[in-house]
């Protein structure tokens, strides 16, 4: 009967060992899952970053196009305006020169408005 007892205990001990192994395996699975979480997350993040990068690059490319268009448009407008200035000048310059010269050359002397015409008296 003692032999049966120790056999029984042995069997139970082995069963316990098996049980512990099973639980241990599941714990290792848990640790593995945590590592997987990290590595999968970083992979997804990289994909996302690349997608964003590509989006930004296309945005930049379109913007560069806009800039060179703007330059050309502004230049065209500027040269039109420059021409308008020159034309206006040519059309009006003679009149303006005449006006200027008239003011230089024509003098209309007047007594200062605060003074009165003195009847022969001398000032100072």
């Amino acid at each position: 009967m003692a032999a049966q007892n120790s056999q029984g205990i042995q069997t139970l001990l082995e069963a316990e060992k098996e049980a512990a192994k099973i639980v241990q395996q599941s714990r290792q699975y848990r640790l593995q899952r945590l590592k997987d979480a990290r590595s999968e997350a970083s992979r997804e993040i990289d994909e996302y970053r690349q997608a964003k990068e590509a989006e930004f690059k296309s945005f930049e490319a379109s913007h560069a196009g806009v800039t060179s268009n703007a330059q050309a448009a502004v230049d065209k407008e500027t040269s039109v305006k420059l021409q308008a200035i020159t034309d206006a000048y040519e059309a009006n310059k003679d009149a303006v020169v005449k006006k200027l010269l008239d003011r230089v050359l024509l003098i209309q002397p007047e007594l200062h408005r605060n003074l009165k015409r003195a009847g022969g008296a001398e000032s100072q």
Partner: protein
Amino acid sequence: MPPRPMNDDEVLSEMNKMVAFIKQEALEKAREIKVKADEEFAIEKAKLVKQEQQAIDAQFEKKRKGAEVAQKIAQSNLTNKSRLKLLQRREEQLQELFSIARTSILTFAEDEGRYSQFLEGAVVQGFLQLMETRVTLHVRGQDADIMRKAGEAAADSYAQISGREVSFELETTLSEDCAGGVKLVSSSRRITIDNTLDERLRLLEDKMLPEIRRDLFGPNENRKFYT
């Protein structure tokens, strides 16, 4: 009644039951752990991804804003340069106009009739400003004769207008490069009136700028206030 001792079969079956029970418990515990592990996996992954995504988004938003600002700056630079070019052109035209005027007054002195009339007027104007009894008139060498006559006429005009007398002296101190005209100096030599053609033109070039702008280029459309 105390329980009778078990026979071998019963012992065996009890053993098996116990072993099975132990195994069952282990399996259940293992399953629990696995389920929890999967949950944590999902949560952790989502958290990490979301965190990094937000950081990346913020980064690119900043880049995009920077690019927009740079574009606005470039645009503003273009407009500025264009405006400067326009203003430069106006300035060139204006200077050309003034030099035309300057060359034409140089030939004015040749028309003796108009020139002496001008001189007379200039002297009267000077007398009326000085209001002195004795004045020195400075002219160019070539104007000395014309000046003598014009000066007399001017003194008469002055007497008529102001009722006061004036006497003057002539000096030919102005250089020959001068376009013409007269400088009047008071007797104490403290007051000088520069009434030469060059000086008059120079003053007008400055004072008439608003008017010239209006006549040459049209009024300013952006201006809101006129006194």
